[in-house]
């Protein structure tokens, strides 16, 4: 039993790595790329939702903002694609600074509303600034190359982008496991006490927000570069909603749950497009409603609970275990004790 517990994490990690490497062989490569990018997006969002207790409904601004920034860098400078992607991530972080500064002071549901509104502002700016962004047509013909190597084949691009994406995952994981991440969890669970212990709560929240935005931006930039195309849809509110859905479906505060959620949602969308079903929102919305009503712990959360119940073992105090560990109904991401 002890051995299996010790072996579980490396085994899972190895399995995940193998899956990430094998993915373009198993499914259509552009879909594999979509999954990998959305997975990082979901993990970055969970850093904020699951581990800081802030539900951002405006992350499309960072995913899509970076998509445009990265595409513009690639089009106008001809720099290699990793530079463009990192440029997009930096842009997302810079954009997140004022938005986060104004939003983190608000509690729970207000934070969601305000981030949603700011993201809509970014959407309107992108839509109206036609000369730069191409308006409704999006930004097309984005080059993908690395030192003269042509990467326009999605299969090749996937492997070229994978190191950056994996670095993003490692970053999220490191942040969550770091002392900084522990402080974030304490802020989620009891902001008043965290404040009383001397932690500048708002500064921590802002830093988490900017980090989450930068990593979402990395994912969004690679997504746009991989498709050679930055679309207006990437900054629209439906994109924010989709990312939130992936996290909730996989399990809030589980980190890897979001990855599973991303895989499932991308696969489902791809299937619906393939069969020509033109009401994706009906399916997406229904899933949303069902998860919220009866499946709030998500896939990973439920699996972990089942496993914990079977082995009769709990690991208290683990970050991310907060709202699923003690068998209570999924506890309140977003609202701690009001000050």
């Amino acid at each position, binding site marked *: 039993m002890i051995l299996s517990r010790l072996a579980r994490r490396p085994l899972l990690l190895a399995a995940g790595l193998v899956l990430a490497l094998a993915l373009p062989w198993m499914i259509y490569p552009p879909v594999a790329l979509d999954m990998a990018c959305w997975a990082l997006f979901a993990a970055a969002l969970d850093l904020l939702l699951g581990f800081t207790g802030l*539900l951002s409904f405006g992350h499309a601004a960072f995913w899509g903002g970076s998509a445009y920034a990265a595409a513009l860098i690639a089009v106008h400078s001809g720099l290699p694609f990793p530079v463009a992607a990192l440029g997009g991530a930096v842009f997302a972080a810079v954009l997140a600074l*004022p938005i986060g500064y*104004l*939003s*983190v*002071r*608000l*509690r*729970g*549901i*207000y934070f*969601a*509303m*305000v981030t*949603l*509104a*700011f993201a*809509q*502002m970014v959407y*309107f*700016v992108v*839509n*109206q600034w036609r000369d730069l962004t191409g308006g409704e047509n999006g930004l097309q013909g984005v080059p993908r190359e690395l030192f003269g190597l042509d990467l326009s084949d999605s299969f090749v691009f996937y492997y070229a982008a994978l190191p950056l994406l994996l670095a993003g995952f490692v970053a999220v994981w490191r942040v969550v496991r770091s002392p900084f991440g522990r402080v974030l969890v304490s802020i989620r669970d009891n*902001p008043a006490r965290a404040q009383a212990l001397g932690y500048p*709560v*708002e500064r921590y929240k802002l830093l988490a927000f900017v980090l989450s935005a930068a990593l979402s931006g990395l994912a969004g930039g690679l997504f746009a570069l991989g498709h050679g195309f930055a679309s207006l849809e990437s900054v629209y*509110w*439906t994109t924010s*909603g989709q990312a*939130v859905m992936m996290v*909730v479906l996989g399990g809030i505060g589980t980190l890897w749950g979001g990855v599973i959620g991303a895989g499932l949602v991308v696969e489902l969308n791809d299937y619906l497009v393939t069969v020509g079903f*033109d*009401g*994706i*929102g*009906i399916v*997406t*919305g*229904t*899933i*949303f*409603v069902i998860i*919220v*009503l009866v499946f*709030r712990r998500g896939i990973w959360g439920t699996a972990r609970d089942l496993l914990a119940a079977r082995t009769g073992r709990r690991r208290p105090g683990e970050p991310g275990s907060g709202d699923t560990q003690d068998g209570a*109904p*999924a*506890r*309140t*991401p*977003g*609202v*701690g004790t*009001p*000050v």
Partner: protein
Amino acid sequence: MLQQAFNGLVGGAFYALLALGLAVIFGMLGVVNFAHGAFYMLGAFGSYVLLDSFGVNFWAALVLVPLLLGLAGTVLERLFIRRLAPLDPLYNFLFTFGLALILQDLVKREYGVQSQPYPRPGLLSGTVDLGLFGYPAYQVFVLAVSVVVCAAVWVVLTRTRVGMIVRAATERPDLTRALGIDVGRWVTPVFGFGIALAGLAGVLAAPMRAVNPLMGADLIITVFAVVVIGGLGSIFGSVAAGFAIGLVSALGNLYVPALSQTLVFILMAAVLLWRPAGLFGREEALS
């Protein structure tokens, strides 16, 4: 310029009706209803379908559609919203988000994304002489209805027993309950009423705005910004901000057309910087 100001007030009339519904629901239930825009859209489509398929005219639709949608709202509250109410308000936000996606795409599948025509009611097809300029009678009517409805709600809230209960339940639900008032009884009708207001706004929008499945979604996010500006949790603030924002964005549009869509969000940022709880809000919104 004066005419533009009037346009702004008419636009503000829609903001105010929607913000009022949101604020009433939020006050009583603590739910931010993302589907509010979808119900506004359903209001417009409701009157379109009634006219197109059943020959029911605008005036009947003006009464019928809000009633039907209000009824649908009460059912929705009984079946789902109530169940999620004890949990974090974010779950109801996510629930109504999913609902909005469903409603929007159902209508889209049925009617496509192009706009449906809806004629102005004959009685209001002319223009009204406002002294300095002539103005379409229908727009004047919309403004009047919105002002009257908002004022009526205000009177009900401040001058009647029902209003007193609702305000008390908004401020201190537990204490109100302890005083022997059945708060739960009022939750469902208030939710239905909020939805009916969105439906009313939709019916009013049908003859002057494009009736299409996406008309509610973008509008509601702007209304969120309006509510944040007016003051989180303040009913008066929401309505006042609705009219004010309509006016300011119309005038802004006159001077800086490039900012027409973003101005409201810039204002929101400024208000958040200056008064994080909004112009008329209470501090409880802050962490």
